[in-house]
């Protein structure tokens, strides 16, 4: 059953007011809390018993699957291996996310390894939110890994968001993109206090006319630290773009290390990166519209992370 904390966490990570409609798998404190399959979406525990396999039938359109994880048990470090097989010509939305509630001095963590195999001409939108709450002093640790394999003509859009409370995050994103396929990753991370977040991205454009676009937006508050790495490697005629922007507030520090590797003469790769404080002209503009300084900062950050 869901208690008040569970409900709050589910709402934060998956916008769920309770148990969702359609296919879902809810994991709480390392155990299965509830599962529902649909005619086109099957979910079963994997052979090793340490995760789930989600199979989406070819041609499944306009369906979604929720797979949130919630954690509120002191000292628990949960590790899962989930596999997604998205059938050819399907168009689905997967809503994942992890919410940690820490009420003690013991650390809590979740490492989710998600592997996606996206069939020919299939489209997938993957939405993942990470949050941590609670009055406890224990560290909240989230180390997600996503591996995406896109077949010809497939399209994947991944929205990865971590907007507060997570003390340590080590993210790894890997992608392999075949001919005519495209991958768009948008990562939004806000850290505060002494939090640390690291994101490592390895994207391979292996097929002709494949595309990759990775957008990173970071807000680094307090004494926090964020590092962002991307390796974008092109092995065919393809397009790739990296855009990473970080806003530094207080005493935060940030590193951005984008790398472009064109191993084919027709590859087109670009990147833009910026790190800095909130621009003064933006603040002046909003203040001249009647907002005070703090309101102006909030609006700029909200827009930036939207």
């Amino acid at each position, binding site marked *: 059953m869901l208690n008040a904390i569970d409900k709050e966490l589910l709402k934060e990570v998956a916008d769920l007011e309770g148990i969702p409609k359609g296919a879902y798998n809810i994991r709480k404190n390392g155990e299965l809390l509830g599962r529902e399959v649909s005619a086109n979406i099957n979910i079963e525990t994997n052979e090793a018993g340490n995760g789930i396999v989600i199979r989406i039938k070819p041609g499944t359109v306009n369906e979604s699957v929720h797979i949130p994880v919630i954690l509120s048990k002191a000292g628990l470090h949960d590790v899962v291996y989930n596999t997604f097989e998205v059938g050819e010509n399907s168009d689905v939305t997967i809503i994942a996310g992890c919410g940690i509630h820490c009420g003690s001095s013991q650390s809590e963590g979740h490492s989710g390894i998600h592997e996606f195999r996206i069939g020919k001409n299939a489209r997938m939108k993957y939405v993942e939110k990470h949050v941590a709450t609670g009055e406890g002093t224990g560290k909240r640790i989230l180390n997600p890994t996503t591996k995406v394999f896109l077949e010809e003509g497939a399209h994947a859009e991944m929205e990865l968001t971590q907007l507060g409370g997570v003390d340590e995050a080590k993210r790894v994103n890997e992608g392999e993109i075949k001919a005519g396929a495209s991958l768009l990753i948008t990562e939004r991370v806000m850290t505060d206090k002494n939090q640390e977040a690291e994101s490592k991205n390895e994207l391979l454009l292996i097929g002709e006319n494949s595309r990759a676009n990775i957008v990173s937006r970071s807000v680094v508050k307090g004494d926090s630290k964020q590092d962002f790495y991307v390796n974008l490697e092109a092995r065919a005629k393809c397009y790739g773009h990296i855009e990473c922007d970080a806003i530094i507030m207080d005493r935060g520090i940030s590193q951005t290390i984008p790398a472009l590797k064109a191993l084919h003469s027709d590859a087109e790769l670009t990147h833009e990166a910026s790190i800095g404080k909130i621009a003064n002209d933006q603040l002046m503009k909003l203040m001249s519209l*009647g*907002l005070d300084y703090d309101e102006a900062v909030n609006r700029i950050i909200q827009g930036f992370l939207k």
Partner: protein
Amino acid sequence: MIELKNVSFVVPDEESTNGGAPKEIIKNLSFIFEEGKFYGITGPNGGGKTTLAKLIMGIHPVTSGKIFFKGEDITDLSITERARKGIAYGFQHSARFKGTTFRDLLSIAAGTDNEDELIKIIARLGICSIDFLDNPVNSKLSGGEIKKIELATIIARNPKVAIYDEPDTGIDLWTIGPMVELLKREKEAFNTTTMVVSHNKAFLEAADDVILIRGGKIAYEGDLEGAKPILEDLSVCGFADVCEGESYAECYR
């Protein structure tokens, strides 16, 4: 409406460009801007026009002197407080954002996100497309688009005092006429005290009163005819290299 009393603005040592010595940008300037009048503020570059406009908005603090708004001393008020009292400011170089849309800015300016209200405002500007509202206010916008957005955010506030710093920067010659008409219309409809910092003849012709600022002082105040001999005197332009195309032919630098 706005009274400047012995206003001076001195750039501190560390910010000055002349080798570290303090520089007086506005020198003991006094003036009364009357309610509902249209002022064209012009003069040579570096003369202090923009600085004067920024002092009124509170973007720069005055070094000495006082600024009054409807008789109330606003010298020590912040930008926000002045904005809330009804002073609005159009920046020459509009801020570009990441992730903030025209709709966001307009909602802040208008104090409502009601779409019908926002549409009424953009209709006043002659923007017909509702889709335009969801344009991100980023570096991809053209000079003309960003200027429309800047104007819209000022008009949305129905200000008592509207200050426009070179509103014709980055727009084509054909857009200037409608822009002048718009400012005049808004002035009539809301009795807005309007100040336009500009070199452009079109704005100066529309003005009830032309103020020529040179060397941090008012060198002339009156109708455009009277200002012409002085402006022509100043027409040996030191900024020809940054001036572009047709707008140069229409400008009094």
